[in-house]
């Protein structure tokens, strides 16, 4: 249906909810590239004013991509929980924003609400919010997941140890793992982006990580970020797979460009569950997303990149993941041009994911052709720490020598844990204490040159 708003005798028209959402979004280069952004500042605010008046129930009947055409839309609509939605069913988008920020919206209430919200509703409300609103509400959401440890508890911040190497050299990878563990990182997952996706190669890496985790009895999990079809094949070969990884998007076409659909993800999910390798819980999936992936695959269907991103969370939600990670600054400046856009997008993604009930982590990152630097990452890292982000990446010196981009370092993790009083996952914290890596106050201890982790490289 059509929406409109009049400012000083000028009436702005928005033909569809899809158009209204796109034009209400804070400016980012990807929406301009797609030709869906507002023409100027006034039109953007007019769209926000109109969007604020849209009843939430409209989102259940007016779909941004037709139900018949897109399985992600079908998933969103078919899995909508009307009972959970009931407390806010009479709200407009604007009223939802005010309610979320009010003291009436408690952590428990938000948890119960999650299945009643759709990605489009949370995308819409995020477009009306300032950065501090996104932080305030996300901070109220606690999403806890478990495999061999407990991730997402209040006052905790976990880390994916990302020991990538350009040729997957086992000793090169092990060196980065030792470095990370001795700096207190690795509780979210030890996760490698493999240089090649060949099953034999991935299997070698899986065995390597499994033996390190077993030998040092580390309460964490491993993941090789290969394509889901590779993982499926390896599950059949009884490879030691803790978590199954996949990049996902918010439209059926985007997922097709990744070589997946919902049925394939379901198959992989069931396969991962069948291995029963978790000791504390059964969250076995690891998903990565990022604004701009749909446009990049020419699969955005006229939907703005932030709404596409929120729709990807509906896909993730179906499979109760241990970790969801928005790789926010990796995609490049044609989607998120500079530090300001990257920071805004990260806060939106974290907020939307959390509100939908997902264990959100953020790869606080940028490429060298984006207008951003380590100072922008410090800002974003600190904001996400305040917002209660579940986990971030830990990479030696913040420099990924395989993927050629910059993220956050083991030192950055120490910084944000220290200034905000955040601790690692409880089981991992105990392990760090036992290993003499960290003390009860969370301070890193000097490592003795005979430390047993250092012997890893001699065997």
């Amino acid at each position: 249906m059509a929406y409109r708003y009049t400012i000083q005798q000028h009436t702005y028209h928005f033909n569809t909810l899809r158009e209204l959402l796109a034009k209400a979004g804070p400016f980012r280069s990807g929406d301009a590239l797609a030709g869906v952004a507002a023409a100027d500042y006034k039109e953007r605010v007019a769209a926000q004013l109109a969007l604020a008046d849209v009843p939430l129930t409209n989102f259940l009947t007016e779909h941004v991509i037709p139900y018949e055409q897109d399985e992600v839309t079908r998933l969103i609509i078919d899995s909508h929980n009307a009972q959970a939605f009931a407390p806010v069913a009479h709200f407009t988008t604007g009223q939802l924003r005010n309610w979320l920020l009010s003291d009436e919206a408690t952590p428990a209430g938000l948890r119960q609400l999650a299945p009643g919200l759709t990605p489009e509703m949370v995308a819409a409300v995020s477009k009306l919010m300032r950065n501090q609103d996104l932080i305030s509400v996300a901070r109220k959401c606690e999403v806890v997941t478990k495999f061999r440890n407990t991730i997402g508890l209040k006052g905790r911040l976990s880390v994916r140890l990302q020991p990538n190497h350009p040729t997957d050299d086992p000793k090169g990878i092990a060196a980065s793992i030792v470095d990370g563990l001795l700096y207190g990182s690795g509780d979210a997952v030890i996760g490698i982006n493999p240089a090649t996706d060949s099953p034999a190669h991935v299997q070698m890496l899986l065995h390597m990580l499994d033996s390190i985790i077993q030998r040092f009895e580390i309460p964490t999990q491993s993941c090789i970020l290969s394509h889901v079809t590779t993982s499926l094949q390896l599950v059949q070969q009884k490879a030691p797979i803790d978590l199954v990884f996949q990049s996902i998007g918010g439209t059926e076409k985007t997922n097709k460009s990744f070589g997946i659909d919902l049925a394939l993800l379901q198959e992989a999910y069931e396969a991962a569950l069948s291995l029963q390798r978790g000791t504390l819980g059964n969250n076995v999936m690891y998903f990565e997303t990022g604004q701009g992936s749909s446009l990049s695959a020419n699969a955005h269907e006229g939907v703005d990149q932030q709404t596409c991103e929120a729709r990807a969370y509906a896909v993730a939600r179906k499979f109760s993941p241990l970790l969801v990670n928005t790789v926010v600054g990796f995609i490049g400046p044609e989607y998120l041009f500079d530090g300001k856009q990257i920071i805004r997008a990260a806060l939106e993604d974290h907020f939307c994911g959390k509100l939908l009930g997902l264990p959100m982590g953020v790869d606080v990152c940028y490429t060298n052709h984006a207008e951003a630097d380590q100072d922008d990452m410090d800002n974003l890292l600190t904001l996400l720490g305040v917002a209660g982000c579940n986990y971030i990446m830990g990479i030696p010196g913040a420099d990924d020598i395989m993927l050629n981009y910059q993220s956050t370092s083991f030192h950055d993790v120490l910084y944000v844990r220290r200034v905000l009083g955040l601790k690692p996952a409880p089981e991992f914290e105990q392990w760090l204490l036992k290993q003499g890596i960290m003390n009860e106050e969370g301070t890193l201890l000097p490592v003795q040159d005979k430390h047993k982790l250092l012997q890893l490289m001699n065997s």
Partner: protein
Amino acid sequence: MGNIEKHIVQTDPWANLKEFTAARIALGRTGTAEPLQALLQFRLAHAHARDAVYAVLDQPVLLNELRSLQQASFTLQTQAASRSEYLQYPHKGRRLHTASHDQLTEFNSTGYDLCLVLADGLSATAINSHAIPVLKLLLPLFEKASLSVAPVCIVQEGRVAIGDECGHLLKARLVAVLIGERPGLSSPDSLGVYLTWRPAPGLTDEARNCISNIRPEGLNYPAAAERIFYMISESLRLQLSGVGLKDNGRLIS
């Protein structure tokens, strides 16, 4: 200063592991922070990469060098009027500016085996440093194989697909685009070469073959030239490029 620093900075007793990886491990720390030297080394690497993104093709030097190799050339513009536009609107870097398009049309090509394109991509530094040394090795191989080469297209604000239009207008059987790759912290000057059989606007990546990481510390000049020549010969022989063309040959006899 040296002594104070020694006392303040906590070193890591696993510096020996650096032999296994170029990753920034065993940096040491002061409090929770990286020591200043590590921070400044990182900043310097980022400066190299940033400057590479905003570097400009050194056209006078490139033209001179090509002339001395008896190679005619065109200097061309794309529809991206600035670096900022290039970065935000990728499609503008994939099409020629009208004047440049006309220039190639008016040339009235009678057809060539090869069209060579030098495009800045995301690192003009890569072209400025490595394009001529690679061509110096490649051109004699083309001559020996009796392959005709169109005037070299030097393209400012160009992306890979610009080769499709250049090659098409110059009626070339195959286009090779030499282009600056996205700079990493340890590789601000990496050159990539993309080959496309029967170039025409509208082709996509699956129609291409890529030879990446050409620089003295990566794939060095002689190895790169050998690989490029092998792939070009195979593409011309099999009359295809892209997924159907495999890089099986490491050495040519």
